[in-house]
């Protein structure tokens, strides 16, 4: 299929080809200009036995960028546990794929789009969603759920105030996610939004997508891979025409954000959900019977990355002809075509005998498709424009041949400052203040912008502890949530990473789901500074040791480095996406209390002064030591709760997180529209404000029918889980008493008013 857009003339191609060969000095200078390190340049020259061409250098610059190669972290990521009996595809695939039983598997992955969203919030977020959806589609799965983890500066810093109540950045990001997700028709079912001044110059936009595919139980295998194979088989370009958007976006994503970042806007891609939708349907229905052999999404570094990685994965060569690539803009140079990151494109390897039916298939969906190359003998990828050669490189050298970078790590990190002494806070007033905070208050004004029910899978959506989705026609389902707190990681990256795992485990347990795998989105600062590199290493060590304790694998994810701005680095922020199994969606507890329910507190009440939202709010500081994490106790607690849910004894549940016991209980009240009266036996000498509001882990509120209380308490004692019969739900006020004194008493109406005042709205 010929493109209606003017191709570069033969003379111009010949002229460019003639300029491809550079002298020693010019070549080294261009390499430096493209941010290739001197040792990387030497490595390339040595491996090739010649100087690279001009276009080849650009290919190396893209593929050896941090974004594509993970060169600064790969040796650390290699230590993470990645396998398990349910894992069908792990890291290295487009997305992790996990067997969820009864003939279904879930593909899921989290990915960041931080830099583009900082520069162009709407398109950055929209293309982040589009990109992660294509990863799911590339595995052969039909996307069915989106979650997002967003971190913004404090409301003031992003221009968000109570009136007009929205900042352009928050608004742009939320509308971008909504604009793409709603139109392509994938339910947005959860996630989290946090606000911290340390994200003001560099917001974080992480999107998690999940999709369903058939597996086992006699179903034809729908899982796809990206290994090119079979000499003479054809390379099929599918989707949107290639334009000049996002050229070398991967390299842009591998730099810090500067004052002149606006000049980077041409690096940001533009999303088209309509094109994405047509492409999704065409690709999902493009089966092996129609000639489909291998599939890869064109993301970072576009056609270069897709072709090189597919050839390398299959240990074959590939020839690409740029003249056959559909173009959107006139006179695009070979280098521009190769490195464009235009959205909504896939590369397939198809059976040589199926060319016409494959082309017909895509054209019938209104999707561009063009044979742009073939699988050849050898191990080299050769890119030509007509007869002129622009790239002729060993696929593996480009795909995996980068030098791992072991940046020096600081010997130690500064320990977090302890809190100065302060007078006991009024628990009731502080609770209301906490509920007014944008990160803790009502997010419904944001989440109502997302279609949460399309696809008819959503059992639990946003505002619940975790999202729950049902498998088609079955009682069985799966749960997803995202956890990870930068503030805790800033205090202690190792403990912060473990706390993220614990939070995910707990949130899943609250919907009766058993954790089976995670995907990790690691958002970090520059690895070139020893303290930050140490933080990166500590986060990954925390995940590694935590996952080993839990016996849970990571099946994929993403590392985003250089999250810094003139305002400084972000706190290390791992966003852990947790996948859990639900055996019966009819048993899933809600996050809402009903009058008459008994309230149980699972876990141990604490009161030591650890890093806590309320203390930072009261003192207006960022300090406090990270709380201790005991994953063995967390797992015991989670397993116990999941077991009780499966016995049908649990009606409501909520894990304790930011804002402590009182905030979690207040949210259960707010969702249920009823009050609660509980009594907490405080430890000897414990301060009520710490006990009620401190951010302690390994604690869960449970609401149940009164007749189940004895059985729950007995089972908890047998399981070694501390459990306290704390009180009952009902009435129109939230009241928490100590053994002797009242800790707080607040009318439900006051809670509702505060919660609605969080000031997050569009």
């Amino acid at each position: 299929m010929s493109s209606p857009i003017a191709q570069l003339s033969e003379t111009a191609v010949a002229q460019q080809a003639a300029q491809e060969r550079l002298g020693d000095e010019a070549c080294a200078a261009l390499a430096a200009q493209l941010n290739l390190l001197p040792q990387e340049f030497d490595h390339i020259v040595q491996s090739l036995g010649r100087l690279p061409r001009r276009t080849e250098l650009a290919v190396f610059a893209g593929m050896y960028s941090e974004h594509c190669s993970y060169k600064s972290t790969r040796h650390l990521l290699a230590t993470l546990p990645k396998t398990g009996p349910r894992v069908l595809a792990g890291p290295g695939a487009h997305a992790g794929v996990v067997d969820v039983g009864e003939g279904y598997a879930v593909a899921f992955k989290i990915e960041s789009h931080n830099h583009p969203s900082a520069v162009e919030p709407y398109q950055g977020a929209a293309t982040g969603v589009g990109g992660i959806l294509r990863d799911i589609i590339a595995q052969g799965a039909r996307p069915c759920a989106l979650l997002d983890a967003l971190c913004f500066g404090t409301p003031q810093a992003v221009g968000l105030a109570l009136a007009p109540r929205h900042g352009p950045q928050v608004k742009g990001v939320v509308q971008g996610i909504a604009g793409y997700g709603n139109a392509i028709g994938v339910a947005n079912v959860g996630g989290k939004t946090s606000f911290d001044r340390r994200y003001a110059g560099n917001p974080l936009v992480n999107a998690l997508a999940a999709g369903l595919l058939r597996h086992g139980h006699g179903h034809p295998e729908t899982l796809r891979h990206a290994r090119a194979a079979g000499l003479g088989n054809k390379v099929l370009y599918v989707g949107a025409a290639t334009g000049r958007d996002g050229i070398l976006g991967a390299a842009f994503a591998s730099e810090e954000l500067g004052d002149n970042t606006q000049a980077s806007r041409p690096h940001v891609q533009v999303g088209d959900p309509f094109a994405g939708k047509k492409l999704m349907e065409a690709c999902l229905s493009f089966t092996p019977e129609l000639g489909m052999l291998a599939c890869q999404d064109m993301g970072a570094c576009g056609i270069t990355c897709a072709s090189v990685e597919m050839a390398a994965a299959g240990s074959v060569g590939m020839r690409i002809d740029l003249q056959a690539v559909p173009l959107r803009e006139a006179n695009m140079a070979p280098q521009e075509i190769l490195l464009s990151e235009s959205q909504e494109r896939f590369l397939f390897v198809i059976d040589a005998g199926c060319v016409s039916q494959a082309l017909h298939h895509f054209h019938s969906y209104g999707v561009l498709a063009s044979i742009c190359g073939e699988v050849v003998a050898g191990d080299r990828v050769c890119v030509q424009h007509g007869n002129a050669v622009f790239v002729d490189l060993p696929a593996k050298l480009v795909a995996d041949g980068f030098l791992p970078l072991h940046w020096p790590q600081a010997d130690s990190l500064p320990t977090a400052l302890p809190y100065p002494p302060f007078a006991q806070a009024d628990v009731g007033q502080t609770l209301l203040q906490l509920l007014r905070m944008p990160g803790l208050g009502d997010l419904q004004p944001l989440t109502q912008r997302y279609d949460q029910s399309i696809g008819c899978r959503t059992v639990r959506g946003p505002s619940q502890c975790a999202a729950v989705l049902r498998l088609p026609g079955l009682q069985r389902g799966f749960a997803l949530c995202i956890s990870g707190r930068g503030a805790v990681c800033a205090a202690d990256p190792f403990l912060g990473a473990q706390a993220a795992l614990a939070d995910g485990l707990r949130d899943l347990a609250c919907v009766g789901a058993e954790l089976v795998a995670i995907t990790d989105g690691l958002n970090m600062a520059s690895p070139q500074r020893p303290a930050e590199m140490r933080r990166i290493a500590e986060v990954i060590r925390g995940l590694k040791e935590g996952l080993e304790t839990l016996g849970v694998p990571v099946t994929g994810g993403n590392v985003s480095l250089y999250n810094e701005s003139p305002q400084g680095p972000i706190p290390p922020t791992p966003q852990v996406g947790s996948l859990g199994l639900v055996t019966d969606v009819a048993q899933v507890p809600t996050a809402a209390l009903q009058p008459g329910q008994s309230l149980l507190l699972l876990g141990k009440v604490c009161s030591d002064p650890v890093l806590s939202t309320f203390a930072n709010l009261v003192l207006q500081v960022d300090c406090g030591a990270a709380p201790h994490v005991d994953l063995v106790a967390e797992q015991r607690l989670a397993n116990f709760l999941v077991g009780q849910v499966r016995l049908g004894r649990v009606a409501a549940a909520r894990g304790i997180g930011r804002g402590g016991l009182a905030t979690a209980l207040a949210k259960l009240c707010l969702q249920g529209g009823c009050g609660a009266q509980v009594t907490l036996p405080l430890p000897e000498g414990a301060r009520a404000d710490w006990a009620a509001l401190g951010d302690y882990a390994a604690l869960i509120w449970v609401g149940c029918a009164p007749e189940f209380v004895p059985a729950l308490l007995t089972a908890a004692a047998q399981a070694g889980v501390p459990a306290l019969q704390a009180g009952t739900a009902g009435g129109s006020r939230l009241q928490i008493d100590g053994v002797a004194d009242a800790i707080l008493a607040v009318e439900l109406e006051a809670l509702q008013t505060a919660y609605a005042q969080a000031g997050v709205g569009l």
Partner: protein
Amino acid sequence: MKRLQAVVLSFPGSNGDRDLLEAFAAAGFAPRLHRAHEPLPPEAAVVGLPGGFSYGDYWRAGMLASQAAAVAGLKAHVAKGGLVLGICNGLQILVEADLLPGALRTNAPPGFVHAMAVVEVTPAAQASPWLRGLAVGQRLRLPIAHGEGNYFHPQGAKRAQALAALTYVHNPNGSQASLAALCDPTGQILGIMPHPERAIDSLLGSADGLQIFAGAYQALAGAQR
């Protein structure tokens, strides 16, 4: 008896087509997808136009889709007693095709909104086989998910009120007379902004929508006997 055929039109950009298929099946129909650029198949007893963003809705919502070959056949389909259901974008398409009166404007306040809405059955609903089984005043819980659902009738709110077969209990989008659904004069064409096809199972929040599909099935099955 041969099962009643339901055809779900799929436009490029439709995204509620699979949900609608499931809802028709749950009510007893034999449903299948039909790509809207091809003429309407004659055997269909019911035609559904699903929600979504047909042709991206980059232009006025539903405008391009209203020109599709299958939509051109809807008038004849209704003339021979067939039923039509347009949901969300499907309603926008029916309005653009002049099969239902009025227009759907940007929500007031503006912005896409997702919520579980409560709608009430009006006396006008009794004219439609889709809704005849429901009691006047009965309330249904149905999800809404749209950015352009603000119904406008050029003759004003009075006319909209007369046409409304379902009304929102709390108007979410600024629609005249809180209109959530309306029918053509025959009652055979129902256009509805909320999503009954997503309310066919109480585990997912509501099963109230199933009554609308079941109503159509009973009306047609009764006529066939």
